[in-house]
């Protein structure tokens, strides 16, 4: 696993000035001062103490770091915090409302859709993005559009079942 703010070799140029970034994170206005190379993932975890979002690979290959930016799911390890200045970020910590679990969180519990739980925040945020896109209908389509989230414990069948349940719940509500 890569550490935050990895410096692969000694800096050869003068240290760049840190940049002030404003983010709406889970409905709260946050301001932080970050070096340009701080990824959105490191900003959330190390600067804002929102450690629900996980770092698996740090290279876009696992989906553990999935968050919603302006309602769309992305890999927070492959974008810079400075690039998202002004954006609205939703992490797994921001899904529940007024003490009630998000239908996806409830469905993951109901279907036992995890073992170690490390991939789960990314799975849930990704599934929230998938439902908002409205493209996946069948189980095959859910599997394909969730393929950016790897589960080392292999909880895939239960994850698909949980997403199907949450799709039903959310469709019933709207």
């Amino acid at each position, binding site marked *: 696993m*890569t550490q935050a*703010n*990895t*410096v*692969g*070799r000694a*800096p*050869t*140029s*003068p*240290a*760049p000035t840190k*940049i002030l970034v404003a983010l709406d994170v889970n409905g709260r206005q946050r301001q932080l001062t970050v070096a*340009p*190379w701080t*990824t959105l993932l490191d900003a959330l975890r190390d600067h804002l103490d929102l450690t629900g979002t996980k770092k698996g690979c*740090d*290279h*876009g290959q696992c*989906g553990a770091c*999935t968050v919603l930016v302006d309602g*769309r*799911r*992305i*890999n927070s390890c*492959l*974008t*810079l915090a*400075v*690039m998202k200045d002004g954006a609205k970020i939703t992490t797994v910590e921001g899904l529940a409302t007024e003490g009630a679990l998000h239908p996806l969180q409830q469905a993951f519990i109901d279907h036992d859709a995890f073992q170690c739980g490390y991939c789960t925040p990314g799975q849930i945020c*990704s599934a929230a*993005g*998938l439902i908002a*896109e409205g*493209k996946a209908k*069948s189980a*095959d*389509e859910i*599997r*394909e*559009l*969730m*393929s*950016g*989230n*790897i589960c080392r414990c292999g909880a895939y069948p239960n994850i698909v079942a949980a997403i199907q349940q949450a799709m039903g719940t959310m469709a019933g509500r709207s």
Partner: protein
Amino acid sequence: MINFQYARANDVADAVRMIATDPTAKFIAGGTNLIDLMKEDVERPSGLIDISRLPLKGVEETSDGGVRIGALVPNSDLAWHPLIEQRYPLLRNAILAGASQQLRNMASTGGNLLQRTRCAYFYDIATPCNKREPGSGCSAIGGINRIHAILGTSESCIATHPSDMCVALAALDAKVHVTGPAGERVLAFTDFHRLPDSSPQTDTNLHPNELITAVELPAKGFPANYSYLKIRDRLSYAFALVSIAAAMELEGGTIGEARLALGGVAHKPWRDSAAESALRGQPANQTTFEQAADILLRDARGYEHNTFKIDLARRGIVRTLTQAAQATPQSQSDKKIR
């Protein structure tokens, strides 16, 4: 990641001016390839010029019936844009075969063209690689080369271009609009990427100080008879070993115009006019498709671990042309190859 300065471009002229004043800086759009390579110290730009807010996000019809795609249109929005779904389903399917939905939400049209090879030695700064360090040698030629090229290779480099979207854009005869200090120019898609020859460090014919502004599709989109087949080690979220884009016009079982492009086999999306001529005017059957495949692969050459790609490509071409002719394009969610 090394130290770098960050600045945001406000418009196209601004971006071009900024790169002209610092040639060691790089544009950043989605960041999905550049940030990855910066974390590995493969790319070491002195500065990043953030172009992600430039107003190049439209997908619009052109006066001659084609479509102009802004360089910053995300891959996901492009795949699901009504104009693309209806008129260029080959492009939609190729995009949806690539990466993951999260990555497609980030990846831009321009950045996809400029993504770099997935050769493991290119990524590993401890090993020689002519593409990363010109003159240091190619570790893949005598090393592990299972994913490498079988066409258009050179003694300097046998890397492949990893994009799926570009295979469809090559088949569809797209054009690339770019702006530089000297103004605008337009490149045919097949002239955009280059073969490695003795300078594999240069992936494309884009000048380092030029910005891609748009990709343009001509009117002809082959929405009736097309297919994109991607063959890979796992069924999703993996790069192609071989991918095939096929499209044709059919009149009562006879092929009119035909397009055939391959990914995963060369340093650029591979198109071959001789193979396409061999399809034109012929009956749409297995014999015709096999002949076209043999022509396309006539100069194919395998290395120690990738010779299987020649047979795989041959069978893949025949299968994809068959799917296109039968109007049963490969599904990107039900993965069975029929």
